[in-house]
């Protein structure tokens, strides 16, 4: 009995999110009230965030054999909840122009966050698979939420088909591994022959097929092709969610899999992962180079950023997990800010989003604070010192250098060099003279003010973490120790 209560306590944050989903659904059945639904979503997520923070002193809790709630889990739960809250704040003013049912969006958002949380805590293929699907299936609906706009429908459709293919790969890979080992838990993925036996082709194929699926979700080359179209077509708050929560959860899972499953300790497999990383950072940045649509540009740049991140898996240095935690947190913060500005400029919804670079020309003269925030985010994405992007980039470089992976170090440097061009181009556009045909960003009610506050806070945090990153680094270090041991 005691043990059960302990497990429930450990699973409290996702349970709270789940409860709020149920609450939302019941509310929806009784009456449609947008403000109430929004308040319930935000309230539930905030409660979950508080619970997450309160759980920090608890120590690792095994919640059923399928989940583990340790500090690593809590760290990423925190990141996911904060990012989801920001997405909800952006969605509110955005949807105010959506002339249709708006309440369902919040149900899908919360369910998707629930799936992401499950993914982060997973240590078993069952929780991995269902978590990933619970993350993705509401996302199909969110991407196609404004389906009367053809772009949104097209994006949702593309994402659904390709994601389904990826799911099949994941399942097949898991089945192969299960067949070889007789176990679905990460830590038991040991060849049936015994501990000393090297993973044979069978198991390599299994982990390879899983890797195809997971790198698809992370939009790494060569499984990246869907990214720009889906980012462009999806409503801006959904693109934000896709670029932050979805990526964080899947990467956190991938890292746990690589750290805890013995079969991933294969030199050739890691070399191939390194090749994927190198290809992603180069191709992602090259594709972004002359892109005029800001959402596509950010999509391409996310390919490159995930490529940088993937180098840590190859390095396997003692610093790797800490580096991933720091980099993901900084990347999420920065992406939230950048997409948030795009979302705010496109709010309220009126057909296709205002994401063309011309929409942002001279934003400084219209909405100075938004433009300055955007400029800070671009600097941070480019990894300029005194922004938190620099801290993350610095970690990646030190990890690759510490492991002597000079080819990956070179790739990160070349990629960042290319990236500088397009980030600075966006920055310059913000301060240029405003042409007559640019869409006027509108200001609506309180929701917009909330969303703006979120963008300001993110911009302030970007600078603050750049000059005083110690708290973040400390948290990441603890997360690294709990997972590493």
């Amino acid at each position: 009995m005691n043990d059960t209560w302990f497990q429930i306590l450990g699973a409290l944050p996702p349970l709270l999110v789940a409860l709020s989903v149920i609450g939302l659904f019941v509310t929806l059945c009784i009456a449609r009230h947008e403000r109430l639904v929004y308040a319930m979503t935000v309230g539930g997520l905030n409660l979950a965030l508080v619970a997450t923070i309160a759980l920090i002193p608890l120590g690792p809790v095994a919640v059923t054999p399928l989940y583990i709630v340790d500090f690593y889990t809590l760290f990423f739960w925190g990141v996911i909840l904060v990012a989801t809250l920001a997405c909800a704040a952006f969605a509110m003013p955005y949807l105010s122009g959506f002339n249709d049912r708006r309440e369902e969006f919040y149900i899908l958002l919360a369910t998707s966050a629930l799936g992401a949380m499950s993914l982060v805590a997973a240590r078993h293929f069952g929780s991995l698979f269902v978590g990933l699907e619970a993350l993705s299936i509401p996302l199909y609906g969110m991407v196609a939420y404004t389906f009367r706009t053809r772009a949104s429908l097209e994006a949702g459709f593309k994402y659904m088909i390709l994601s389904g293919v990826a799911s099949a790969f994941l399942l097949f890979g898991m089945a192969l591994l299960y067949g070889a080992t007789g176990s679905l838990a990460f830590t038991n993925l040991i060849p049936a022959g015994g501990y000393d036996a090297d993973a044979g082709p069978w198991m390599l194929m299994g982990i390879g097929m899983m890797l195809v699926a997971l790198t698809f979700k992370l939009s790494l080359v060569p499984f990246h092709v869907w990214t720009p179209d889906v980012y462009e077509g999806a409503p801006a708050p959904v693109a934000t969610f896709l670029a932050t929560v979805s990526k964080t959860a899947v990467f956190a899972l991938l890292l746990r899999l690589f750290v805890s499953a013995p079969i991933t300790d294969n030199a050739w497999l890691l070399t191939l992962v390194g090749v994927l990383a190198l290809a992603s950072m180069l191709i992602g940045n090259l594709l972004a180079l002359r892109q005029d649509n800001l959402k596509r540009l950010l999509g391409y740049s996310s390919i490159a950023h995930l490529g940088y991140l993937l180098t840590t898996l190859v390095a396997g240095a003692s610093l790797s997990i800490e580096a991933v935690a720091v980099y993901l947190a900084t990347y999420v913060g920065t992406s939230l800010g950048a997409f948030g500005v795009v979302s705010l400029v496109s709010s309220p919804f009126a057909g296709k989003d205002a994401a063309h670079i011309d929409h942002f020309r001279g934003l400084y003269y219209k909405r100075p604070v938004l433009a300055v925030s955007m400029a800070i985010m671009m600097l941070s994405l480019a990894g300029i010192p005194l922004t938190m992007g620099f801290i993350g980039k610095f970690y990646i470089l030190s990890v690759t250098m510490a492991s002597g992976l000079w080819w990956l170090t070179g790739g990160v440097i070349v990629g960042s060099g290319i990236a500088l061009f397009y980030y600075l181009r966006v920055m310059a556009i913000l301060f240029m003279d405003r042409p007559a045909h640019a869409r006027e960003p509108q200001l609506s009610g309180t929701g917009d003010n909330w969303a703006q506050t979120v963008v300001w806070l993110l911009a302030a945090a970007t600078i603050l973490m750049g000059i005083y990153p110690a708290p973040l680094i400390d948290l990441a270090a603890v997360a690294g120790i709990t997972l590493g041991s």
Partner: protein
Amino acid sequence: MEFTFFAAGIVALATTARVITCANPVHALLYLITSMLALAIDFYALGAAFAAVLEVVVYAGAIMVLFVFVVMMLNLNNETVAREKSWLRPQLWAGPAAAAGLLLLALLWALIFGGIEYGGITGEELAAREVGMNLFGPYVLVVELAAFLLLAALVVAAHIGRDDTDQVSDAAARGERVTTNVRESR
């Protein structure tokens, strides 16, 4: 057991091949259902009687019927079949066949030289009770999560599957100004 497995497997392969080559959607659906029934026999041969039942009832019975409904809504006719045939040009097959060949080679390599001991499947029947115990034992949270997943799928389908007429009545119920055509910019 072996004979049943191989015979049903060959049926499944043949019908599945017809699904991807067939021009008539209704025929394709029937082939797919046949393939699933054959797979259900395989499941039974492998001792997974419960899964075999589910395959027939849920997969072939429910999901495929969903497809049938949609086919009915799409108003397919002979024209569709003709267009379907024109889309299946032979030169389309080169790339996918090459990729599939390479992947098949890799998969077979992995299976045959996999370093996994042969044999092992006795076909001993697995009680549904055990599966149930498993589902509501260690997997209980995952099952709950799957429920949320289905709920989300329901919400998505309900939202996306709606007509424009709904939108008008909804908006009217809210007392909002109705604009049927959402502004679009390309």
